[in-house]
């Protein structure tokens, strides 16, 4: 740098050019030499960096050194106590070219000494002597000393211990390697020394500074002084291009000051701070265009700065440094912090600030910062960093807004005088515009001044700002993309600007989405809207308000929603959007975040509109219902919501009115969708009743207002189970859960269009509307009842709910969950049911007729025509009544039934009944099994007959036979006849049996009552249908009337008497009258129960008598001893037709029949010794007797029944006539089959099976013709000894006899093969006991035996004994008694024992 220029610069205040400042290096000695070297030097010095090692452990730095070389002057050296660092010369260089010793000695040495002394006087140790050598000079002076000598001399003279303080620079102006080398050495030395000087001096300075700082608690300490000192350090760092370090200095100052303010706030005030607390008089904002604001600096230096001044200056310095550091975003960030901070500090320090002054200051500062940043960045950078500056923009807007309010610029009337005064005051505080910006049209100062000066301008600015703050694009617009005049134009022309604004708003939204600060955008937009509203621009405001509202709704901020809605309502009112306004009003009226008054006001707004007198006679306005009222419950009556055509249904709605005051509602209407279902069955009452289980109350989910819509609208999870089976073996492969509505749940929530509710508000125009007029909806729950007269059958779905208040209709578009009611139409029905479980034939029984009228209305004269069946007359009582029930089984009325009966038709006149009612009445019917219909089919066995009528079936003995009877009924509602089948059960089952006593014959009929009822039987009779006069049936039944109880049997017995020869078969007809035992009256002629049967072959042919005799020497039979058994078979009649064909064997004129006898002891009481069976030839003649003897041995003691003796017809094979029969072998072969037959006889199975058995048996004998056995018909053989017993005494009497015998008997029975040995053992044992006991017992037994069968208590035994009947049916005791009474004692041939 030119020294002359330097000279010039020094005249000005020294720090203005800090930026350009370089460390000062003084030059002494040969000035011309230096001038010649200066260009090279200044060029070369910063070329290479040098490492600067710092004290206090600070990181070393590479530093490019530059210097300002000035001529050495003594006044440059700092005086004692001068802290100025910027003007501090860090290094002093003495230049010399001297190569002559003489010259050196004379002039140079003195000069250097003088220079040195001056330095020493100022205690400056940073010096350097440069000796420049040049070959040219050497050549000129031949007598030169070796060049080292001069240098050595200088070194000797001055640098006594610091030889490095002297440097040789050889041939600096030549371009040789040597000169290059020396340059490098020199530069390195220079740099090193400079740095050394820096380190030393700065270190010293810092120490001093620190000392000063430590004194801050002392009373006289001044922050401003310290500030200046530390700033000096910062300046130096800045000078050294160490912006980082410089910034640190300012930051330290900043922090120190902040700390003091905070301490002050905490009550620890420093004296010097009070100075900063002076009232703010100037608020002209930050000034960032100048690197150093000397005005402010001076103020600080003079301790006249206010807090704002200090802050402004401090920040401007920080800002400058940050911009040097290429960190403009930090500026904006720090600026915001600073502005916030200042506002707070002023408050904390209780500095008095005129209203609006701070706002002005903040606004100006914001804009200044923004403009400064714009000035140093290109557009792309700004675009990318909107997020850093947006805060400032927003802050500026906020402040401008509050200024606008303050100065009355936003009020509709414009500013008043007070506002104007305030404005003037504020403008005054701005001071004059600074000269730097005076020419620029876009200075913040101008903007604010202009803005505050007029309403119009304020608007422009506000708009500009509020727009710019949100969009980087607009920032660019204002900053310079558009030319200045364009921007001005925009500002001036409001209308044009509005268009711009609209475009930009869209851009804004996009930009904000990119930045991700949607909420802030909305808030700003809302503010803008607020402004628009004040300036009567509601159409612009609305967009912003709607946008903000949407966000708040989505996130569920109730209070914000309310507030925004309030604004929106105002906006819509101004816009005249009646529908929207009313909707918002209704929402607000139902909003409980508002006060009661406000709600009422909004409610009143709606009501005012609905007032028909209002001049606004537009068409109807449709609003959503949910804001007005909520549908809570719906209640059907009847609860199943099913009603017949013409029936009444009531629906009760519970509406929760959200309005704060009672609202008069003109009409509440439900729009109903009607659909006909094809399936008519589903429309019947039964079906619908069955399938609707609800109690008629449907609850609607209440909307939760607190939660955001996005959450509300989430559909419920619909899950279903899923099973996957493998196709081959149907085993389960996979099981899982499927979410059916995943597409709904996983949908992006933003894109859901659920927020814009008013889109689909259409009113369905259906023919079916339920209405309810003129109601008053009170706040809270209201119940509204709709009454419906059902008309057409079908399903009615409630779709929409509409509440009309004047012209306003509140519509609930969808009623969900789906609510339906059904109307059905039913065909009339007739049902005939028995009153009891089953109908019994033969007696009158009640049948219930149920007529369901359905849609048919019973008129007078409507009759049921019943076609009479002969077998089933219909009985009725004149007092029988019909009862009419309503559809819900409520009894309505009773009326008597009129029945007219003709021969064929019974007509029942039905009572008059409305549709959908039920008529019930009872009639008595009786089934009379007509005799003509009944037919008897004879079975093979005579004792088993089955009644088989048309459709009669007998399943089992204990089951009643049933008869179906059909009745044809003509109903008045139908041209077709209804056929109804009634099933009757026959209550009785009859069986017969033939009993014989010797030659006398008895017929027994057993009547079994199968029903649950008791019957009284009377007039029983048995008739021989063959009309044989010589046959007489003598009844042995005493009482004329008998009661047969439920599930019991009764027996009747007749004796057959005949005079002539008996017929082969006998046709009998049994009939008995019956009536229920309980019924008193016997008014009706009930048909008797009849039973037909046939008896065959009932004559007694043979009389069998069995006798057992004790051994000859003994009085009684004894166990173990053989007794003789004598069977005498006597032929009673001559050869008759019955066995004529059997008596084939004729020899000597005699007819004989072959009989086979068999002695069987089933109870194993006897051991039959010898042949137990055999074939005898019996002459066919009366009184022919054949006796068979055999030996039997009793196995037990006591009264033993006789062994059975059976008699069969023995029919030898005709072809094998001559064949000698070996009965024994035959018996052996046939033993099995005979035994079987004996067993089978009990159930009296058919003979055929037996025959077939024989045929198979004969087949086994290799085709040998075998004789046949045929049993006699019951009654043909009379066994007089059946049931007889004989006393068997034990072989040796003993007292313990019975006990022992019993126990042994049991054992014997278990092991029959060891019987003998046991009995012997027993006998042996008994012998040892007293013989008397046996005699006593025997006598007692004998007495008993003598009394015979008559005394036998068991009727069954008696029955078997006397009648030898195969029938095992139980007889009632009365019968036994009767029999005993009626039996002629001696004639029966009761056998006497022994």
């Amino acid at each position, binding site marked *: 740098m030119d020294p002359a220029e330097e000279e010039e610069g020094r005249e000005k205040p020294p720090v203005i050019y800090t930026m350009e400042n370089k460390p000062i290096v003084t030059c002494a000695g040969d000035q011309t030499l230096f001038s010649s070297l200066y260009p090279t030097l200044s060029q070369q010095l910063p070329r290479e960096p040098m490492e600067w090692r710092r004290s206090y452990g600070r990181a070393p730095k590479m530093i490019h050194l530059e210097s300002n070389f000035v001529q050495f002057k003594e006044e440059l050296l700092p005086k004692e106590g001068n802290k100025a660092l910027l003007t501090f010369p860090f290094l002093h260089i003495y230049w010399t070219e001297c190569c002559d010793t003489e010259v050196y000695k004379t002039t140079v040495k003195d000069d250097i000494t003088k220079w040195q002394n001056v330095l020493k006087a100022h205690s400056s140790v940073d010096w350097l002597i440069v000796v420049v050598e040049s070959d040219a000079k050497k050549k000129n002076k031949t007598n030169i000393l070796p060049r080292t000598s001069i240098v050595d001399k200088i070194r000797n003279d001055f640098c006594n211990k610091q030889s490095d303080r002297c440097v040789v620079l050889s041939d600096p102006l030549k371009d040789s390697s040597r000169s290059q080398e020396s340059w490098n050495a020199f530069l390195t030395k220079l740099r090193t020394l400079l740095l050394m000087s820096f380190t030393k001096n700065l270190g010293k300075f810092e120490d001093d500074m620190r000392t000063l700082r430590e004194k801050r608690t002392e009373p006289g300490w001044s922050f401003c002084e310290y500030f200046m000192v530390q700033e000096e350090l910062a300046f130096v760092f800045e000078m050294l291009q160490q912006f980082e370090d410089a910034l640190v200095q300012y930051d330290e100052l900043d922090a120190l000051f902040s700390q003091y303010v905070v301490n002050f706030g905490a009550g620890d005030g420093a004296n010097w701070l009070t100075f900063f607390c002076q009232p703010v008089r100037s608020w002209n904002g930050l000034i960032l265009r100048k690197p150093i604001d000397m005005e402010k600096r001076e103020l600080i230096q003079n301790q006249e700065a206010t807090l704002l001044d200090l802050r402004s200056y401090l920040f401007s310095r920080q800002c400058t440094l940050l911009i040097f550091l290429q960190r403009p975003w930090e500026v904006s960030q720090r600026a915001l912090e600073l502005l916030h901070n200042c506002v*707070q500090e002023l408050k904390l320090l209780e500095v008095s600030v005129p209203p609006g002054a701070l706002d002005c200051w903040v606004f100006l500062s914001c804009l200044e910062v923004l403009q400064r940043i714009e000035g140093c960045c290109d557009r792309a950078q700004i675009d990318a960093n909107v*997020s850093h500056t947006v805060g400032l923009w927003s802050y500026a807007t906020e402040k401008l807004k509050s200024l606008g309010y303050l100065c009355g610029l936003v009020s509709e009337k414009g500013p008043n005088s007070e506002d104007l005064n305030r404005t003037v005051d504020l403008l005054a505080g701005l001071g004059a515009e600074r000269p730097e910006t005076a020419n620029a049209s876009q200075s913040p100062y101008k903007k604010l001044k202009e803005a505050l000066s007029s309403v119009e301008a304020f608007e422009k600015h506000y708009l500009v700002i509020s727009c710019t703050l949100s969009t980087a694009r607009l920032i660019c617009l204002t900053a310079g993309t558009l030319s200045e005049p364009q921007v001005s134009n925009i500002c001036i022309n409001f209308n044009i600007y509005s268009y711009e604004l609209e475009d930009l708003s869209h851009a804004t939204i996009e930009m904000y989405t990119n930045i991700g600060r949607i909420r802030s955008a909305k808030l700003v937009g809302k503010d803008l809207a607020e402004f628009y509203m004040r300036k009567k621009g509601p159409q612009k405001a609305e967009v912003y308000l709607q946008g903000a509202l949407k966000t708040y709704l989505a*996130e*569920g901020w109730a209070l914000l929603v309310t507030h925004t809605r309030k604004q929106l309502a105002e906006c819509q009112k101004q816009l005249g959007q009646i529908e929207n306004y009313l909707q918002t009003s209704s929402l607000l009226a139902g909003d409980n975040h508002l006060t009661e008054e406000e709600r009422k006001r909004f409610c009143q707004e709606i009501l005012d509109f609905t007032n028909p007198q209002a001049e606004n006679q537009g068409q109807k306005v449709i609003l959503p219902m949910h804001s007005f009222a909520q549908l809570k419950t719906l209640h059907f009556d009847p609860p199943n919501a099913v009603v017949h055509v013409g029936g009444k249904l009531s629906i009760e709605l519970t509406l929760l009115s959200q309005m704060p005051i009672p609202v008069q509602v003109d009409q509440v209407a439900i729009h109903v969708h009607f659909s006909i279902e094809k399936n008519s069955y589903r429309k019947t009452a039964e079906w619908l009743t069955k399938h609707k289980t609800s109690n008629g109350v449907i609850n609607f989910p209440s909307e939760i207002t607190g939660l955001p819509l996005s959450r509300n609208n989430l559909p419920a999870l619909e899950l279903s189970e899923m099973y996957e089976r493998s196709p081959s073996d149907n085993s389960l492969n996979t099981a899982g859960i499927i979410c059916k509505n995943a597409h709904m749940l996983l949908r992006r929530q933003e894109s859901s269009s659920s927020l814009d509710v008013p889109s689909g508000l259409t009113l369905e125009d259906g023919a079916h509307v339920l209405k309810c007029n003129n109601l008053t909806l009170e706040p809270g729950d209201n119940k509204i009842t709709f009454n419906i007269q059902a008309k057409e059958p079908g399903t009615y779905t409630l779709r929409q709910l509409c509440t009309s208040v004047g012209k306003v209709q509140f519509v609930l578009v969808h009623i969900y969950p789906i609510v339906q009611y059904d109307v059905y139409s039913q065909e009339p029905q007739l049902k005939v049911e028995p009153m009891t479980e089953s109908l019994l034939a033969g007696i009158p029984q009640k049948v219930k007729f149920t007529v369901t009228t359905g849609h048919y209305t019973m008129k007078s004269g409507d009759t049921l025509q019943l076609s009479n069946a002969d077998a089933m007359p219909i009985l009725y009582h004149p007092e029988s009544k019909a009862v009419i029930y309503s559809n819900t089984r409520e009894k309505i009325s009773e009326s008597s039934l009129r029945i007219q009966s003709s021969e064929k038709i019974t007509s029942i006149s039905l009572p008059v009944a409305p549709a959908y009612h039920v008529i019930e009445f009872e009639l008595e019917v009786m089934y009379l099994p007509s005799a003509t219909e009944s037919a008897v089919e004879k079975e093979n066995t005579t004792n088993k007959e089955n009644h088989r009528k048309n459709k009669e079936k007998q399943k089992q003995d204990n089951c009643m036979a049933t008869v179906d009877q059909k009745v044809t009924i003509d109903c008045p509602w139908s041209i077709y006849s209804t056929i109804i089948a009634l099933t009757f059960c026959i209550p009785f089952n009859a069986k017969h049996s033939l009993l014989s006593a010797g030659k006398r014959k008895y017929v027994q009929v057993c009547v079994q009552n199968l029903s649950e009822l008791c019957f009284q039987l009377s007039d029983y009779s048995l008739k021989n249908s063959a009309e044989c006069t010589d046959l007489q049936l003598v009844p042995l039944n005493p009482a004329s009337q008998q009661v047969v109880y439920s599930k019991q049997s009764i027996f009747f017995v007749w004796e057959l008497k005949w005079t002539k020869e008996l017929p082969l078969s006998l046709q009998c007809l049994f009939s008995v009258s019956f009536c229920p035992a309980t019924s008193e009256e016997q008014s009706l002629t009930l048909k008797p129960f009849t039973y037909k049967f046939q008896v065959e072959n009932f004559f007694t042919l043979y009389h069998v008598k069995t006798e057992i005799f004790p051994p000859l020497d003994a009085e009684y039979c004894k166990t173990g001893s053989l007794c003789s058994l004598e069977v005498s078979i006597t032929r009673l009649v001559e050869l008759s037709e019955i066995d004529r064909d059997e008596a084939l064997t004729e020899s000597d004129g005699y007819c004989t029949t072959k009989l086979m006898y068999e002695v069987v002891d089933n109870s194993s009481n006897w051991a039959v010794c010898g042949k137990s069976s055999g074939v005898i030839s019996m002459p066919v003649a009366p009184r022919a007797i054949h006796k068979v003897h055999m030996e039997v041995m009793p196995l037990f003691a006591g009264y033993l029944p006789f062994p059975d003796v059976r008699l069969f017809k023995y029919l030898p094979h005709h072809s094998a006539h001559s064949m000698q029969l070996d009965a024994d072998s035959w018996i052996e072969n046939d033993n099995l089959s005979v035994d079987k037959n004996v067993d089978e006889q009990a159930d009296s199975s058919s003979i055929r099976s037996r025959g077939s058995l024989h045929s198979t048996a004969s087949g086994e004998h290799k085709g040998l013709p075998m004789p046949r056995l045929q049993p006699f018909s019951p009654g043909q053989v009379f066994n007089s000894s059946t049931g007889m017993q004989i006393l068997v005494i034990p072989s040796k009497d003993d007292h313990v006899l019975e006990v022992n015998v019993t126990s042994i008997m049991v054992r014997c029975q278990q092991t029959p093969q060891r019987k003998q040995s046991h009995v012997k053992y027993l006998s042996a044992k008994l012998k040892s006991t007293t013989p008397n006991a046996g005699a006593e017992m025997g006598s007692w037994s004998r007495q008993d035996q003598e009394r015979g069968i008559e005394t036998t208590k068991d009727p069954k035994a008696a029955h078997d004994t006397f009648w030898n009947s195969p029938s095992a049916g139980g007889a009632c005791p009365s019968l036994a008694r009767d029999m005993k009474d009626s039996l002629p004692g001696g004639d029966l041939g009761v056998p006497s024992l022994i």
Partner: protein
Amino acid sequence: NYPLYIRSVPTENELKFHYTVHTSLDVVDEKISAMGKALVDQRELYGYVTNSKVKFVMVVDSSNTALRDNEIRSMFRKLHNSYTDIMCNPFYNPGDRIHSRAFDTMVNSMMMQLLIPVPLASPGSPVFSSMENTKAAALPDP
């Protein structure tokens, strides 16, 4: 981002606070990873995000200088603990508004504690609110 619980003492400026808190969510979203602090010229606003993306925002009067970051942090921790207690309640449906009395008293005591040591002319106006971030996706960290 919907409020679970919001409460302010005193209530006169509630609306403004709600706006503030709502707007501040932007910042919280941006700084979702850490505890954020935002300054408005009269209030300080602190945010705290739990691992389950539940956000707590606290607005304190900025003149309340006695309040250090550490204290704020401990208050948030206290809030978080209390919130966890609520979540442990089997009758609480996550996502519902908080109506717990225990939580109320806890917040109340915290607010009172803040009010008492600052006897300044303008009472400190802390607002606590917790919000659940319904979106599970983490917001991009700026």
